[in-house]
């Protein structure tokens, strides 16, 4: 798939090895293989990353899970077609750079997670990730993925 297209749940599950409760992508709105991905994630009280309130603090999503959501969306953007058999090559998260959050996500938020592939070299792929809620950016990070490449990769 090279053109922008919605990705069904079956395809998400075929590409990402993550499973509930650590699958941080509910829906893919648009995906250009090797280039970009826009995904949604609804935050709920049941998410494993929810830090329950103590004292006056309300429950909120740990920022580590924002990174995880961006990383999984980055993997969907950067994933390469499967070899003859088996799962597509999504690689591993090799580095996180310049991670910032503007505010924490809370139950009820729908995260709009964008991942744009900036470039690649030597099996490493640089991806810019952002998370928005209701049009407001709440987090961003530069992610480096290690994705095994083969001749003919896009």
């Amino acid at each position, binding site marked *: 798939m090279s053109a922008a297209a919605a990705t069904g749940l079956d395809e998400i599950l075929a590409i990402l090895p993550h499973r509930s409760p650590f699958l941080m992508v509910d829906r893919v709105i648009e995906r250009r293989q090797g280039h970009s991905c826009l995904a949604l994630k609804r935050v709920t009280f049941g998410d494993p990353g929810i830090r329950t309130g103590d004292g006056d603090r309300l429950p909120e999503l740990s920022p580590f899970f924002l990174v995880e959501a961006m990383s999984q969306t980055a993997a969907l953007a950067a994933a390469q077609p499967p070899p003859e058999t088996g799962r597509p090559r999504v690689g591993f998260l090799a*580095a996180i750079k310049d991670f910032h959050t503007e505010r924490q996500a809370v139950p009820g938020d729908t995260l709009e997670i964008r991942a744009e592939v900036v470039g690649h*070299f*030597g099996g*490493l792929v640089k991806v810019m990730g952002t998370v928005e809620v209701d049009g407001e950016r709440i987090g961003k990070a530069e992610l*480096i993925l290690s994705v095994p490449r083969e001749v003919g990769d896009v």
Partner: protein
Amino acid sequence: MSEDDKALALKIKKLIIGRLKLEIEPEEIEDDQPLFGEGLGLDSIDALELVLGLEQEFAVKIEDEEVGVKAFASIDALVTFVKEKGLQTA
């Protein structure tokens, strides 16, 4: 090294320092010093950042690791590579 080469070497050193957020001055990078491993101590993630930086700043593309190994041997090697392959836009 000609004056033009020295100016290009300085631009490349500033690019390396800026893209990799190194806390050193350009003068601290020797022109014949290896950039990776024992030299400046850069790693594969730094290489990715430099490849993208060189493409953006000098319009040169390092296609694969074989080319990268030669181009990233030193500042001198990078100057030669950019002169041969690039359009100096910076």
